[in-house]
């Protein structure tokens, strides 16, 4: 799909904002999780869990869904495609995986936040935090970022086939870019 450069830049801006915002929100969530684990102050633990729930549902989930959707849009409006290059394919799979785990995980966070709202001091001290999921999620998001920046080479079979078809259609084209 061919779109004007201005529109493509705008889509890229939205995609980058959502993706990097997702990473920043996970870092903030992780800080709250660490606080819930390490703090001896029960009010801090309670506040951390409530903030984790709010951050999760109202910041991380929207940003994750937006990053996934805008990534799909970017694959459609740029020559990269969705299944033509391994790095795009892997980035897509990792994004879908991270979003799915996030959506499956958040109800549990809500449950624990509800506990934190009502728990007494002794129960709050045992509540702990949430470190592994956001920690691993952050690693996955950073891996996706690295893929997007470095764009390691490698055509999929589908991408190679599409490229061959295109070359058969336009054999005279020798430009610097490969249009799908």
């Amino acid at each position, binding site marked *: 799909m061919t779109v004007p450069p201005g529109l493509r830049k705008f889509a*890229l801006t939205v995609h980058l904002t959502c993706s990097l915002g997702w990473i920043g929100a996970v870092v903030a969530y992780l800080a709250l999780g660490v606080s819930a684990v390490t703090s001896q102050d029960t009010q801090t633990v309670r506040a951390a869990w409530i903030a984790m729930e709010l951050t999760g549902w109202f910041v991380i989930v929207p940003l994750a869904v937006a990053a996934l959707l805008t990534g799909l849009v970017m694959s459609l409006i740029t*020559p990269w495609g969705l299944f033509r290059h*391994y790095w795009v394919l892997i980035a897509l799979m990792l994004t879908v995986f991270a979003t799915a785990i996030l959506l499956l995980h958040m109800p*549990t966070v809500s449950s624990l936040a509800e506990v934190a709202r009502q728990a007494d001091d002794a129960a709050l001290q045992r509540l*702990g935090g949430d*470190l592994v999921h956001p920690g691993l999620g952050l690693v996955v998001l950073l891996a996706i970022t690295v893929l997007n920046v470095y*764009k*390691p*080479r490698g055509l999929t079979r589908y991408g190679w086939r599409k490229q061959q078809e295109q070359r058969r259609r336009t054999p005279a084209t020798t430009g610097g870019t490969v249009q799908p």
Partner: protein
Amino acid sequence: MADPPRRRDTAGLGADRASPPRMPRWVKLSLILAAVLVLVVVIAMLIAGGRHGPSRHAPGIQLPPSSVTANVAPSGGGLGGLAPSGVSHR
């Protein structure tokens, strides 16, 4: 993603060949790494008795039940479900 692929990006791995390109080494290594990580997570979950979720990973933290809200439901007596036995079981 907006930067269009350059010719060099694709030609080096078989774009000009008659046969489909082979899977790049970095993809194979990534897949192996992912498989190992999945295996480690599965083994860790099996060792933990299949339990999973927040607070189960933090060291020294007692594990809440999977359906925590059931313990704070009105029928459970308000905060009664948060008694030590309700939080530290499993």
